[in-house]
């Protein structure tokens, strides 16, 4: 693996790591399997792309994307808590709706962002080549968001959110309106995912309605890989593990795509198979470890 490819994997790892934090929040903290993310990632990208092409600041684009993501997540949670639709189904309904909505927002299936300003524009002129600066920049953003999430989960409200996912009856008996916690939590999760999507669009110079396909699987793979590598004993550890897992996942994929066995090599369309394989390895590794330890 070349340094260039490795830096690329790091960059992707940090970018999608923000999305994986969102998946961690719903999947692990709230115990709410949320497929909305497959739609809220391109939602963030669409909102960001349209904001920038309309001549506004790329930072405003990120904020609007996060707000849009929050709304999408809140809709899923409202369908679940108020209309009593099963969480998985509620999230699928929002996800498919977002496909149509994203095309409406962009006025077509995609928007190119060539020659427009992005959050990376400001990095030019810092002296270092961009392919070295971008991973550092995205690392800082991912680190700041991870720190923010760790702080939040230690607040009174954050603790109530952890309890909502752990024992809903208990925390209701202690006076917490769990519906509100779930609405806020799923909203927050999707705002992270949309924020990640907005950064991805600015980084790759395009937003596409299909860029969200498989987001949930990539997010889960990152969460589970991270837990296998770093453990999940404390909130701090579990949150950092998500970013580590995301980087590990992108590195593994870069390695697999660079692999050449005689005439055989993987193509990007093999990604799903590789991902499924990685998740299975990560899920079964504790069991395998125990077996071989005997």
């Amino acid at each position, binding site marked *: 693996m070349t340094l260039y490819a490795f830096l690329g994997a790091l960059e992707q790892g940090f970018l999608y790591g923000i999305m994986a934090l969102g998946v961690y929040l719903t999947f692990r903290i709230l115990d709410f399997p949320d497929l909305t993310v497959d739609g809220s990632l391109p939602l963030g990208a669409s909102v960001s792309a349209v904001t920038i092409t309309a001549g506004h600041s790329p930072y405003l684009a990120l904020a609007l994307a996060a707000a849009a993501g929050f709304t999408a997540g809140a809709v899923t949670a409202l369908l679940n808590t108020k209309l009593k639709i099963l969480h998985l189904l509620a999230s699928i309904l929002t996800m498919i709706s977002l496909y149509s909505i994203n095309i409406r927002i962009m006025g077509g299936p995609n928007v190119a962002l060539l020659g427009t300003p992005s959050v990376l524009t400001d990095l030019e002129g810092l002296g270092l080549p961009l392919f070295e600066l971008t991973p550092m920049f995205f690392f800082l953003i991912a680190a700041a968001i991870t720190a923010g999430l760790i702080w*939040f989960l*230690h*607040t*009174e*409200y*954050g*603790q*109530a959110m*952890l*309890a909502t996912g*752990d*024992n809903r*009856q*208990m*925390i*209701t*008996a*202690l*006076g*917490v*309106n*769990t519906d509100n916690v779930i609405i806020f939590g799923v909203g927050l999760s999707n705002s992270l995912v949309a924020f990640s999507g907005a950064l991805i669009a600015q980084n790759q110079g395009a937003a596409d309605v299909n860029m969200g396909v498989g987001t949930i699987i990539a997010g889960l793979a990152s969460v589970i890989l991270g837990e296998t590598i770093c453990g999940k004993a404390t909130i701090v550890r579990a949150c950092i593990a998500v970013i580590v897992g995301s980087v590990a996942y992108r590195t593994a994929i870069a390695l697999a795509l660079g692999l050449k066995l005689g005439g055989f090599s993987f193509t990007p369309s093999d990604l799903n198979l590789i991902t499924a394989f990685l998740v299975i390895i990560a899920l079964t590794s504790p069991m395998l470890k125990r077996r071989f330890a005997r």
Partner: protein
Amino acid sequence: MISAQALNKYFHRGSVNEVHSIRDLSIEIEQGDFITIIGSNGAGKSTFLSCLSGTHPLDSGCITVDGTDVTRWPEHRRAGFIGRVFQDPLMGTCAGGSIAQNMALALKRGQRRGLSRGVKPADRELFRERLRVLGLGLEDRLQDRAGLLSGGQRQALTMVMATLVRPKLLLLDEHTAALDPKTAAQILELTENIVTAGGLTTLMVTHNMHQALALGNRLVMMHRGRIIFDVRGKEKAGLGVEDLLEKFHSQEDAEISDRMLLG
């Protein structure tokens, strides 16, 4: 004072499985009352508690607390004045949270939860002090996950959590039924200590007639969703298990379950 007037609760209303679980039930719970509730299976004891806590919405009737009508308050809002301990010892605590985190959650019962630190260092001494009373050594294990504790320890912790913020009403729903006899006796002793020390208004559902007679100042017997017997003070103190059994039999359609007889 907590007053329940003509409560009615149905399950599966309008279907062939309709159950009229609470029938025109009225009761005045005086400040400081420690009421034990007995009755056969399906008498509506737990349902009555759920109606008070707001877990089950009522079909009709009215509940007031110190003159405030709370009938339409959702469960989480009523939690502001109600402390609860459940039958399942795993139900009252968060397995994934530490003892300190669980206590901190209980300390905010009925208050807004904001963005200040969840477990405040200043509260740790209070937590230790309350846990020391249990004599289980939990005061030195604040950082341990609640999931590591035994059923009895978790139930004791739940008891402390339910009363950490003084409740206007404490609801104990067969909270010793899932424990072994020795642990059950310990939890019961703890219950009596906490309730009498605080003069807490308490409702305790039990299947054990000895418990029902030994504890509290008032005893209520339920049958088929109604209160069929309500004694207090000296009259209660003079009762024996035989008297209660007789009361059951005197009901025309009394059915006494095996469990009740074994109690």
